[in-house]
């Protein structure tokens, strides 16, 4: 059985795919807008993709606080239902 990817790995892959950036750029401290070149449409699209991938709901007021890659990883780790 293939080893299950961590939340962090999956989040990073999705960011690389959607923003067309290099994997090395996607560090926990990287800011979506300033460092990864995202605009407001990208950030909405990314949050929707995270919601779907991890089956979590991110209210708009929470989404606004997710400025860095690390913010997202933390948020998802805190809110995702542990899969048994």
């Amino acid at each position, binding site marked *: 059985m293939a080893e299950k990817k961590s939340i962090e790995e999956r989040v990073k892959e999705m960011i690389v795919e*959607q*923003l*067309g*950036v290099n994997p090395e750029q996607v560090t926990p401290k990287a800011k979506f807008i300033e460092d990864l*070149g995202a605009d407001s*449409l*990208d950030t*909405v*699209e990314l949050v*929707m993709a995270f919601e*779907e991938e991890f089956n979590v709901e991110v209210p708009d007021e929470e989404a606004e606080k997710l400025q860095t890659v690390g913010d997202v990883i933390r948020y998802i780790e805190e809110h995702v239902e542990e899969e048994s």
Partner: protein
Amino acid sequence: MRRRVVVTGFGAVTPNGNDANSLWESVRNGRSGIDRVTAFDTAGYDCRIAGEVRGIDLSEAFRNPKEARRADRFSQLAMTAAKEAVRHSGLNTDREDPSRIGVIVGSGIGGLKTLEDQHTVLLQKGPKRTSPLMIPMMITNIASGMIAIEFGCQGPNFCVVTACATAAHCIGEAWRLIRDEEAEVIVAGGSEAAVVPLGLSGFANMRALSLRNDDPQKASRPFDKDRDGFVLSEGAGIVVLEELEHAKKRGAPILGEIIGYGLSADASHITAPDPNGRCAARAMTAALKRAGKNPDQIDYINAHATSTQQGDACEALAIRSVFGPYTKKVPVSATKSMTGHCLGAAGAVELILCLQALEEQLIPPTINLDNPDPACDLHHVPYEARESKLKVAMSNSFGFGGHNASLVVAKFE
């Protein structure tokens, strides 16, 4: 003296090749770009053939994969052709006054694939899941916006949407704006990417498409007795129009001059052409008048002729009424026999073919013209390209909605 408007660059992405040269090579040799649809499974579709663009390299047209992903296919094709056209013209937009460079690139339908995909998302996942990029990707004017962003063109920017006359109107309006001193350069043309399930089924159910599924390359047969509809194609055609003195000053290649543009409406039926062809004729007459040419000064007509029963016959009637006895002498060809019908891009693709014909002194043929329909009695150029002394050519475009546009282009002298 009115300002003169010349063409200094062009680019094309079509089923016949991914640049303007390969389009010309294909068309001058009478080769069809039509084949079975590969983009999706057509089981259950009445029509299973189309002209698809194959293997475009988006990394040439877009700075990074994200920009390409955020563009519907019609914008991807438009950007690819625009890059070729601007490169061809040698225009360095960094050295120009950006406020004097415009973009007018239209599409008949716009981002149909995006609409289709997102509607599926809406039905399957609900309203919270449709993409924030859906609207900016599908709106028909977005190609004009994206091209302006890419080249920093801050002059006049819009798009005309007149179905299959879209590109002709975009080019005509660009010509008018440059003449009227609103801009020095305008990147103009059209793009279409409607070979998607909704497009193929929608046109087929209008009974507009050829159903010659077993013989795709014979399906588009304008003016032939056995024509049974047009072949849906995708593609883009873009020209760089420029004020003559501006072009000369920067030593630009001058590929031809737009000298006439005429418009009219059938005001007859939403999709069927006016059976007496009077209004299509009026667009041609207006273009001739603007060009200051008599009918017998036109050396070649690239017909709109899409391969529908009614459309081709009405255009032939209109041509006969404008050209009178000279109809017997003016060569007419329908290059859609090879490209299929690129809808909103067709007028630009065909104007480019006219420019290439003027340059090469060679008239591209109408293929599949086995039995010319007596109702389409014109001076045809069947199967083989014909050498001819060419100075002035006319390109016709007619769109659903009854929109007619005719452009007259001359070899630059």
